[in-house]
């Protein structure tokens, strides 16, 4: 089987490409079926990308060297008052 696209965007555009090629009807039966199978795997893979339950939020804070390091978890829930004093636990 062909190499799997690494990103959702790549999987989607490969899938689109296969669909439009398949619609031309120009391929041999074997090719068409191989493309069909690849397309089905891609569709499945795209769905898996989308299946993530919830937005993952990571907070990044300035690490004095110009890069960003993971900071304390940010809670934007309505129950929690916005923390003006978000205690940044800086892990390098």
């Amino acid at each position, binding site marked *: 089987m062909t190499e799997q696209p690494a990103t959702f*965007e790549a999987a*989607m555009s490969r899938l689109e490409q296969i669909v439009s090629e398949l619609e031309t009807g120009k391929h041999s*039966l074997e090719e068409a079926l191989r493309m069909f199978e690849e397309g089905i795997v891609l569709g499945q893979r795209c769905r898996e990308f989308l299946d993530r339950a919830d937005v993952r939020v990571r907070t990044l804070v300035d690490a004095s060297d110009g890069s960003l390091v993971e900071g304390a978890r940010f809670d934007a829930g309505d129950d929690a008052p916005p923390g003006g004093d978000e205690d940044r636990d800086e892990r390098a």
Partner: protein
Amino acid sequence: MSSYGERVFAVSEVNTLARELIEGEFATVAILGEVSNLREHSSGHVYFKLKDARAQLSAVCFRGDARLVDFELEDGMQLVARGRLTVYEAQGQYQLVARSLEPAGRGDLERAFRLLVAKLQAEGLFDESRKRSLPVFPRGVAVVTSPTGAAIRDILSTLRRRFPCVAVLFVPVQVQGDAAPGQIVRALDALSARDDVDVVIVGRGGGSVEDLWAFNDEEVARAIRRCAHPVISAVGHESDVTIADFVADVRAATPTMAAEIAVPVLADVVARIARMERSLATGARDRVELAGRRVASLLRSYALGQVRGRIEQSMQRVDHAADRLVRGAHMLLRDRATLLDAASARLGGLSPREVLRRGYSVCVDPATGRLVASEAGAVGAGRVHITFQDGAVSATVEGAVRAQGGKA
């Protein structure tokens, strides 16, 4: 200069006279001073004094005008008040009736804004050709804004609602005050180095011109331009336009809209995938059908058995392909009741051998090699070849059969 000589005025008379003189002389005046004794009356009128080192002046801003003030008035702030001078006759006090208030220096800010716009425009920083397009399906959305404002909450809730499979990298920064531009610049530069970011939203909620000023900073503008990822600006409300908006790849009117621009709607994407899966099934089925028709045509052409081996091979290929199609589809989608399943199941019936084995026959116009699928087609062809599971016959079409009772 008038002189009123020996004339004796009533108090009210002289106050009226004074009011008329003052109003005539100071119909429009702009006064710079420090605010003190600020008092917002429940009526909505705002009373205060303007003072400098040596003197003070009473001032009032009536409700209708006070409502239009777009910043927080505070004692101690330097203000330019524009309006007219008048006399409050009952008290014999003269005062300023302010029609508009602005923080001192705002005029300077506006000038600075215009100069910077012209400069950056001349450098081409706002050129349409430099605007990058946004990713259609971002994996990582970076958000550079305040941890305490409404903007981050609006953005996160919009992302959750539309496209919950996205990862958010939130970089909290100050968005107003002297430290803000530097923090925003560092955040944008640091994000440039990361490959888990596909698009950056930078902005804040609404505020006064002064509150939004960090987004009119030259260094912030340059950092947006050199950011490795496309940037969506989202500063203030609809009507607020900052230099960050000019230089960003896409300007969003509000933080919520920035999130809407950044990601698609999940349901739309899922529907699109389902559509493509259907097209796949249809495309594959059409291809198998075509192969089936070729086999039928072969059966007809080589009915004399000249190349029986090849025919059988073709039939096997079609059967094999249809089997693979069905097996493959079922294996992959076993747990999903998708339209695809239905489409794939139909494919099972498309193997010509299966079709023929079930007692159906295939009717072909020998002149064109095309399948005859209608009464009109058969009558038009005149002569047809009919293929059964064990062979084919040639037949002459006598005419349409009038079914008894006809169709319902």
